């Protein structure tokens, strides 16, 4: 596919954020994912051309980072934390249940293209364990049942809202644009902090 003039202009504005243009490689890869859903060969070529690099240099960077995908993922990419703490608290049970429920394994996508699965590492929300991320939005305190319901709703086109995030769950491509530095204007939605984040503050106020 060819990139539109608007897309090329966005790429130029991303490059302009940095003192040296090679630094723009990561946001540009996120940007390619926002267009195609994954890092396409055409995307690699365009980034290489823009940054005056060999395509192999861009591929080398792209394959190093797990958020860059070399094949399409679902419209809703579901990451189940299976690092030790979440795994012990129920992450393993959640992953087992959802993989069986959907009939797909790690890094696989349902045949309708709606949901893909990934076993993810610690996502910095341990006080909300077990944690599931959908398109890198927080779904806190999950159970096997809640995640089965979540993926069913996502496949039906009606996914629930994240626990700490915007009012409606955005798609993989839409969130990839945010990661590329393109604002979607939704920063104001959602809570300031979840209850566990405020627990120490709450106790200190009660005692005064």
């Amino acid at each position, binding site marked *: 596919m060819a990139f539109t003039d608007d897309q090329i202009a966005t790429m130029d504005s991303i490059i302009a*954020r940095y*003192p*040296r243009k*090679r*630094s*723009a490689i*990561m*946001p540009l890869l*996120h940007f390619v994912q926002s267009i195609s859903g994954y890092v396409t060969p055409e995307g690699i070529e365009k980034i290489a051309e823009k*940054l005056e690099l060999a395509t192999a240099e861009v591929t080398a*960077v792209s394959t*190093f*980072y*797990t*958020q*860059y995908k070399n094949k399409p993922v679902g419209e809703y990419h579901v990451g189940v934390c*299976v*690092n*030790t*703490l979440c795994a*012990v*608290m*129920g992450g*393993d*049970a959640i992953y087992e249940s959802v993989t069986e429920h959907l009939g797909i394994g790690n890094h696989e996508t349902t045949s309708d293209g709606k949901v893909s699965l990934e076993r993810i*590492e*610690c*996502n*910095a929300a*341990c*006080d*909300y*364990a*077990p944690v599931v991320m959908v*398109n*890198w*939005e927080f779904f806190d305190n999950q*159970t*096997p049942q809640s995640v089965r319901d979540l993926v069913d709703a996502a496949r039906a086109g009606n996914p629930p809202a994240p626990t*700490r*995030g*915007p009012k409606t769950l955005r798609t993989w491509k839409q*969130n990839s644009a*945010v*990661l590329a530095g393109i*604002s979607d204007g939704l*920063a104001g939605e959602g809570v*300031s*902090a979840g209850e*566990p*984040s*405020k*627990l*120490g*503050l*709450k*106790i*200190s106020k*009660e*005692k005064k």
Partner: protein
Amino acid sequence: MTASKKLSPVLSATWDQDDSFTIDGYTRNKGYTALKKALKMQPDEVIQLIKDSGLRGRGGAGFPTGNKWGFIPQNDGKEHYLVVNADESEPGTCKDVPLMMANPHVLVEGVIIASYAIRANHAFIYVRGEVVHVVRRLQQAIADAYEAGHLGKNIKKSGFDLELTLHVGAGAYICGEETALLDSLEGFRGQPRLRPPFPAIAGLYAKPTVVNNVESISSVPTIVNNGAEWFGSMGTEKSKGFTLYSLSGHVANPGQFEAPLGITLRELLELAGGVRAGHELKFWTPGGSSTPIFTAEHLDVPLDYEGVSAAGSMLGTKALQIFDETTCVVRAALRWSEFYKHESCGKCTPCREGTWWLVQMLKDLEAGKGTEADLEKLLDVCDNIAGRSFCALADGAVAPIISSLKHFRSEYIAHQTNGGCPFDPVASTIFEKASV
């Protein structure tokens, strides 16, 4: 003093306000007043203030923040850079992400003050990519700070210029290591550099660079406003100030507790409602998975840099992951090992190959297929990994193994005599029944 009276919410003080993350909310809470004050000081005075406060890096290593700033050569005719490490990925660590979600402006204000002090005109926040809503909040905060004249050219008519760029990562634990982070920010695979030269001399684009953790930089505005003495009045002799302790796992009420350095797990557990009902503490990490595990015998260790280190571990990120008696320590060690194997960047052979072998051996041990001699071999492999790589990932990888073997050797052997894991994984989940 009861544990609740020890709590000292400073960074988290406004997190219960619905608009704490907005520029209006932050300004109402006296935000950006420290910036005004700092811009009237000489940059060296700001550095001295942070040195005097005793603030130490909150990202794990505990290096004095003011000293780090002081290492930047001045009048060298080179560009200087400030880079905030917001790549929070150490297993168990969950303080910077809620901080940036609830109050991104305190970080932005800290960035401006720190950049002014080290004479940097371009700063970066390197945030991990797996937290989209935090990215949104930071984007908005930076845009609003520009709009308000806190960023850009001639900030508050001080003659000081600063550009702030948000850089979003893409899923690599190793980029939390400061030199790997710099390589990543330069547009390369995130692999650690050989030191020296240290970033203060040759950091981003080989220019003098300070890399600081989110919590460290966010602590700066309040020190500027309240003074070094105020900050130093909290904490212990060598570990000054307040900090965020994150309790997770098998506790009644997990969460964030901001308290002076030196509080104990016994006190923090009291605040978290204790270990979950009907269970008892088995093991815990004081500061993420890379810090050797502790047991119930360490409940009264003061959680400051010196106290934890004297007891044989590290304060790290103050990520206290609590596991009760239903948890198999071999399973925990194996899972962490799988993490380090996955996240090893592959640059150094001992780490790349060694973490792979650790996983193979632990898998056998967990399945009851190991022998007692394998335990010695396991320790031998650990010896050949730790301290033999460019960065500390390898040291972190062996920490859970060596420490769990030290405290629970008999449990490793029980897997062998039992012909498999003697624990029921369902019992350690927080669901009442397996059928949920």
